[in-house]
């Protein structure tokens, strides 16, 4: 049995199944992060001080986010993610031009950059813990950890996905028929859409939490 439009686009909708699927999935992701962003706004509006008390039961207050968070590191991470989005597109473009070696290179770079993002993130978290700043310290740090944590989980998911397509997933391409190649290229496009979304979430997160 063959499911229609697995590889080719349906003429009247102009997309194949996987591409429509990823767009719908991303719509639900928008609602997920949207819910958390809304919670952020709701909590901040209701707060007496933001970020607020830094040690439970004391007068130690933080006035601005950048007293607590490391803006230069986060800026670096923004760059890393944007760069990884670019390499992701290039890996897809390489497949379009039938350059499998290039694909391996760019996809590998994408994965490395994403790992780099997580390493920087780990340093950031470690720094907070060294100061005894935890999610329970105040709602600013709470939402910071939840939002960036959920984002980091998405990054990790992306790494797993991309690593699969870098390694074992390439079997599909190597089968070599035009249909298989087109199928594989579609998959990379879909993975790319997901990856750009993860990037985009960060681009909203960064100013919202670190800057304003």
């Amino acid at each position, binding site marked *: 049995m063959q499911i229609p439009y697995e590889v080719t686009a349906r003429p009247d909708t102009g997309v194949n199944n996987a591409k429509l*699927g990823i767009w719908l999935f991303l719509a639900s992701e928008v609602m997920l992060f949207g*819910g958390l962003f809304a919670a952020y706004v709701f909590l901040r509006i209701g707060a007496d001080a933001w970020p607020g008390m830094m040690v439970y039961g004391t007068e130690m207050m933080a006035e601005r986010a950048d007293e607590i968070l490391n803006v230069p590191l986060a800026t670096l991470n923004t760059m890393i993610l944007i760069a990884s989005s670019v390499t992701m597109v290039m890996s897809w473009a390489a497949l379009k031009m039938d350059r499998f070696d290039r694909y391996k290179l760019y996809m590998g770079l994408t994965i490395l950059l994403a790992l780099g993002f997580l390493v920087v993130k780990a340093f950031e978290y470690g720094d907070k813990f060294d100061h005894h700043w935890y999610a329970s310290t105040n709602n600013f740090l709470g939402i910071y950890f939840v939002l960036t944590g*959920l984002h980091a989980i998405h990054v990790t998911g992306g790494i797993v996905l991309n690593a699969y397509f870098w390694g074992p997933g390439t079997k599909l391409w190597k089968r070599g028929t035009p249909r298989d190649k087109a199928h594989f290229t579609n998959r990379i496009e879909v993975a790319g859409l997901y990856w750009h979304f993860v990037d985009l979430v960060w681009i909203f997160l960064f100013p919202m939490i670190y800057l304003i």
Partner: protein
Amino acid sequence: MADDHSHSDHQEGFWSKYWFSTDHKVIGIQYGITAMLFLLFGFGLMLLMRWQLASPGVEIPLLGALTPEMYNQFGAMHGTIMVFLGVVPLAVGAFGNYVVPLQIGAPDMAFPRLNMASYHVYFWGGVVMLASFFVPEGAAKSGWTSYPPLANIETMGQTMWLWGMVLLITSSLLGAVNFLVTIIQLRTEGMTYFKMPFFVWAQFVTAFLLLLAFPPLEAAGFLQLADRLLGTSFFMPSGLVTAEGPLEVAGGGSPLLWQHLFWFLAHPEVYVLILPAMGIVAEVLANNTRKPLWGYKLMVYSVIFLGFMSFIVWAHHMFITGMGTAISAFFQVTTMIISIPSVVILSALFITLFGGSIRFNTAMWFALGFIPMFGIGGLTGLPLGLAPTDIPLHDTYYVIGHFHYVVAPGTIFALFAGIYYWYPKVTGRTMNETLGRIHFWGSMIAMNGIFLPMLHQGMVGMSRRLFDGGLTYSFTEGVIHYNSVMAVSAFVLLLFQLPFIYNFLTSIKWGRKVTKSNYWEATTLEWSAAPTPPVGHGNFATIPTVYHGPYEYSVPGHELDYCPQEVPIQLPDVADQTVEP
């Protein structure tokens, strides 16, 4: 089933054929059976609660007297199980999965493996929920709504509840994406949107609601998990004091934030509970009145409009939280507006009956029962949508009566209609009609015996979630004896499910064999084009092409009183027609 196929389907083992299947029909059956077991279990919890309410402190065999903690667990889990593990999986997971691909002429769902994953994630979500009864101090006790701060400081069962919900939400999301892609991409040739059966439309809108409304609850679930496990204060206001003294949390959070996020899901969720039911009723009515659905297009527009509106009415559950009159006014208006499409759909279903030569069978009886019962549920909702009348009614038994009318004799009746209607499709045998009638009439009377008194009790002011059924309040004096009526009715309801269970199980083997594939002489593809019982993977011998709308019954000048969608309508040439005396 599928005899001719099991030979060609290379040596599939039991596990891969029935448990790890990627065939939408098998997955639909898996969903259906699991969901029905959960419904029975949730019903059992409720029976115990009703027993306790009728005679507080009674020694229940095996369990002993219920403690308030047990009562609260049963209440919370009854609601959770009925909604998230019973009705939705049956309406969407089972009927949607089984019927939608067949009705649109698709060989399967768009992502068969995702479909399988969705069932398994749902199953494990259910296991987590059930397991939570056995952790120290038992399952969640803060109601299916899990309002903080109470839920935040609850025992471990609440954490299990949250993890269970994360799994169930994930499963719904996988399912929703799959349904949407299937309906958009896999409609067969000629099956334009306005040729889709209304059931498919209902599932289509439902899938959008699941896709977009569930994630904010998932977000809320993560936040509550953080509150419970990481010690954050998202839902904890400053200065909370419990019996053990002040809580050592940072504070500064808001319990209302939870309510907003929760109801942003949970209002669309009630339409998830009702839309598939309306879809089933529409199919059964059209088929058994032998005439087109009245106002098909109007119904489709209504259901789309309803889907949109359901995202902006959520705060009608929160009128007494002190949101302010301006916000209340907004949500009152939207709530009144959303009642319009519901009334339109219900009226259209009702008008469909007009002038039909009705074929009474059990499926039809249940579909007919749905109309007035859903009507009562909907009408009792209007006073709740207006703040002045909602303020005295909120959190009373009136609310319980209201939503149960919608869901129990409403949705559940529609689901029964669906079971009787599609049973021959799935098994190739029919269910017994006499037992079906007994099941219908017994359930009809018992359901009303349970839920009608609730409306009165609530209007007198009896609160919901009372462990002793209102014994300690003097104003309940006039209505407290209803508790006995309701308990008896609940047990009678159980009694009348026995013929159904017997019928359902034995008909698989001993039911009358259907002699022709299109057993109900229906127009939609699942009956007219797909073999009964179905073949294995692939559904159709050849994928059908669709030529006209889904409800061409009793077309004038046509020989048969039904015109299947895959057969072009050829009106006999008028000149040729020899007029018979």
